[in-house]
């Protein structure tokens, strides 16, 4: 039988680890430097986003292209974060304070983020639905000469669009018959009644939810941010800081996505994320957060659920104006008015084109974020696995 006189093996291991940690102290300076650099990069990247948010040509705050840039920033920060957290770090450090608490908290947070990614990715389909309806209006109104037929066709599509856009949170069945002003059938009609259509429209919404009943994006964000506390004192230079920074970025990015894309249950979405203002790297994040929150509050007064996506808002604005045009349309049309409309239709067409080109890549990028989060989580778990907590629950 092999000699196994090492009953104190656990203590033994600890002391081995400790020695390794001590030997790593030489790297401590390097670590601080990396951390410094990480903060600078985070600050720079979000400053870029802040300046792009001023764009007035349609690629500004919460536009598809801005969101895609935001996700890029997330991916960059995440890669750097992972390097700082894992490279050259002894695995056992992750199972010791403060990381033993922070890393699992972080993992809870990112699993919630995964669900947000799925919900948002799903909800992009809703936005694509807006786009399809707007495209019908563009097709109809682009035709020359323009007549009753085209105008009615456009109006029908735009009315359906407005119903989707105006739908209020939690009131899926309050569809008015107004949208079906054309081709409307009384409710007692044989099979295809307006009720059917109303149901199918509200069904469209409920189908677009991907989560269980009761799952709420707003609550998810709330839960992600609830235990988000900035490290204090001695901890602020320790590995606690990168975890905190990445947590903040994750919460912010998910929050922005939820605000922009009409995903499941956004009632009570936070308008303030708890990020202390004195932190240098967080300045731009805070500024962006305030801008988005302001938009959100403004929009919320109207109780719309369509989301703050720039393209959606533009579609809505143009849609309202074009419905006005359609309502007052008389043949033959007034040439000046027609010119005005042509400009709006062109803008609507342009917006649809942006959506057509941007939504799919956006969806793919959300998926990429999802993958990245899963991969990082797995890597940390593997590391913990090797580091091995003796007290780990067994089977």
């Amino acid at each position, binding site marked *: 039988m092999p000699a196994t006189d090492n009953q104190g093996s656990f203590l*033994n291991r600890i002391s081995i680890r400790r020695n390794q940690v001590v030997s790593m102290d030489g790297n401590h300076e390097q670590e601080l430097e990396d951390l410094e650099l990480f903060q600078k990069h985070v600050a720079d990247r979000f400053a870029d986003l802040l300046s792009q948010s001023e764009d007035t040509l349609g690629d500004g705050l919460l536009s598809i292209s801005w969101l895609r840039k935001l996700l890029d920033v997330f991916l960059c920060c995440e890669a750097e974060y992972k390097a700082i957290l894992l490279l050259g770090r002894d695995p056992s450090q992750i199972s010791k304070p403060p990381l033993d608490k922070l890393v699992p908290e972080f993992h809870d947070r990112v699993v919630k983020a995964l669900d947000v990614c799925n919900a948002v990715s799903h909800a992009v389909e809703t936005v694509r639905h807006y786009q399809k309806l707007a495209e019908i209006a563009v097709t109809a109104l682009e035709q020359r*000469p323009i*007549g009753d*037929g085209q105008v009615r066709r456009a109006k029908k599509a735009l009315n359906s669009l407005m119903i989707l856009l105006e739908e209020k949170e939690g009131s899926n069945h309050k569809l008015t018959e107004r949208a079906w002003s054309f081709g409307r059938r009384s409710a007692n*009609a044989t*099979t295809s009644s307006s009720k059917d259509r109303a149901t199918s429209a509200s*069904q469209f919404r409920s189908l677009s939810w991907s989560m269980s009943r009761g799952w709420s994006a707003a609550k998810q964000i709330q839960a992600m941010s609830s235990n988000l506390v900035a490290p204090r004192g001695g901890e602020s230079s320790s590995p606690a800081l990168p975890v905190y920074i990445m947590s903040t970025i994750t919460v912010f990015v998910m929050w922005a996505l939820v605000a922009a894309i009409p995903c499941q249950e956004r009632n009570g979405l936070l308008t303030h994320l708890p990020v202390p203002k004195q932190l240098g790297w967080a300045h731009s994040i805070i500024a962006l957060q305030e801008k988005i929150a302001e938009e959100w509050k403004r929009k919320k007064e109207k109780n719309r659920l369509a989301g703050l996506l720039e393209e959606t808002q533009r579609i809505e604005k143009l849609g309202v104006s074009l419905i006005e045009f359609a309502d007052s349309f008389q043949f033959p049309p007034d040439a000046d008015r027609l010119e005005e409309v042509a400009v709006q239709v062109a803008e609507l067409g342009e917006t649809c084109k942006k959506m057509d080109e941007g939504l799919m890549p956006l969806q793919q990028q959300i998926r990429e974020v999802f993958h990245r989060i*899963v991969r990082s989580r797995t890597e940390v778990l593997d590391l913990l696995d090797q580091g*091995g907590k*003796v007290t780990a629950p067994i089977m």
Partner: protein
Amino acid sequence: MEPPEDKRTPLDEAEGIILRWDSTASEEARDKMIFDSDRNEVDRYLQAVDEIQRSLSSATINSNDERSSRSSNSDESSLNSTIQIAMARLEDEFRNILLSHTAPLETESISLGSDPSSSTHSHGQVDDHEDEGSVHDQGLNLNLNLSLKLAQQREERDEAEGEGGDSVADGASSSRSSYRSTSSIREIDLVPSDAIYDLRCIAERMIAAGYLRECIQVYGSVRKSAVDASFRRLGIEKLSIGDVQRLEWDQLEAKIRRWIHAAKVCVRVLFASEKKLCEQIFENLGTDIDDACFVETVKGPAIQLFNLFEAISISRRSPEKLFKILDLHDALMVLIPDIDIVFEAKTSESIRIQAAEILSRLAEAARGILSEFENAVLREPSRVPVPGGTIHPLTRYVMNYISLISDYKQTLIELIVSKPATGTRYGSDPTTPDMEFADELEGKTPLALHLIWVIVILQFNLDGKSKHYKDTSLAHLFMMNNVHYIVQKVKGSPELREMIGDDYLKKLTGKFRQAATNYQRATWVRVLYCLRDEGLHVSGSFSSGVSKSALRERFKSFNAMFEDVHRNQATWLVPDAQLREELRISISEKLLPAYRSFLGRFRAHIESGKHPENYIKYSVDDLETAVLDFFEGYPVSQHIRRRSSS
């Protein structure tokens, strides 16, 4: 340009028909559906649409040819208005026909060979027959029901495997079914052919008039809710990753079984049939319109389904999940060729990609769990010794586990591609055992190496546990029992035996034999020492040369020791009958001849003195009988019975 007089009539007539069915205009038009009325009316209406469409396209050509006059402009506008009315009407008709054929899939009639709810077979050969089921160790968080469950899983798996070549016939209960023989895909006609004909007639006209988008919108919205209804019927839920993480494993297991079944039905029947429907209605009406409609309908549901699989792969790794994850993996892997067929279009590429990603994620989860399992075996912390030195629950658990692994050999050989991270990594770390990849292990698959490694670390852990016995004899007996059990389990499973290999098995056999020898030494050397000659002969005395008092002491201490050993070791356990027998024989073979000869040499000295019964308490037969009490696990209440005859 005025249209000629004779051409005016059919056009006017056509306009008349369309306006008559303008639902904004008349009550009757609002309440009735054209396609519900007689066929002539349907044909008349469709011809009218064609007529308008024809005039409209020629008008467009004319207006392109020459600077259009105000009047032709106005005519065209009127035609446009008419066609718009017709299209709105056709859109409603299209929706109505679709809606009247949205009954969810009759999943009961679609048997894909195995119904997960009806597995009532009973064979539990995985179970330990010797397991009394009462071994419960508080230090272990072991689920002893696990082996039962594992047995059940194996059953299901057998069924699932048998499914590959199942007959197509049992799915053919519906007369509307049709199959492709080349794959497991079984399309069903979701909509009867006459309705498909109508839908195609409408779609054709909507597309010709440039109303393709409306057509896709209506199609997608109706079919999507039909797919959703089928999903509910199949028991596919909308669950977030968070939900899945919060579920108890028992609940999740049941769900996984359902999801695997549902995934097969979805890919092979539901999605395939949706695809066929799209083709039936839209094929050749324009470029990739059928694909567009198909993706519009099933993309969301397909991703929802795959997300469930993915959520499992992300959930916390724990050993009991391995086999269900492998089931999921295998189910998905078998489905991938069908997924590739159903989602062959460029537009559904993302679905194909996602399925492949999830497959690899499940594989990764399986690998992660195996290494997690190895760690768990290494670190299983219970310190309370099992009474009687019998088989530790950990040993049972681990061996049942790896014999199940060997059942999943086919999959795991492909998934497990790297050798185990053995102790060498930590060098001198005394908390992990060493395993040298000697010649005997050459040519083994990484999976086999992992299994051997698991056995190595199991023994390592057991060695540690054996140190908690105060009695070293019992510690050896414990090791003997456990390693013997390991050997028996390996021999009992042909797959496992093949992977572990006879060389390593020989090593293990040697190990438990060594433990048996160690036990005998630890217990019996002391006892037999009482029966030695040395120290009994008194030097200087020539009379007999034997010291009576020393001899009496010898007998007394032998009796005491034997009684002590007997009392103790009767409560110890060797659960394997054969091993128990062999061990007793081996004890008897040493003990009885030694006692017999000692007795032969010195009995006379005792019997010539007073109270010989105080010193010679046992006959050889008494001892032989007493040895039979050993390792039965029961306390012996009476003292060893004295020889009753004489």
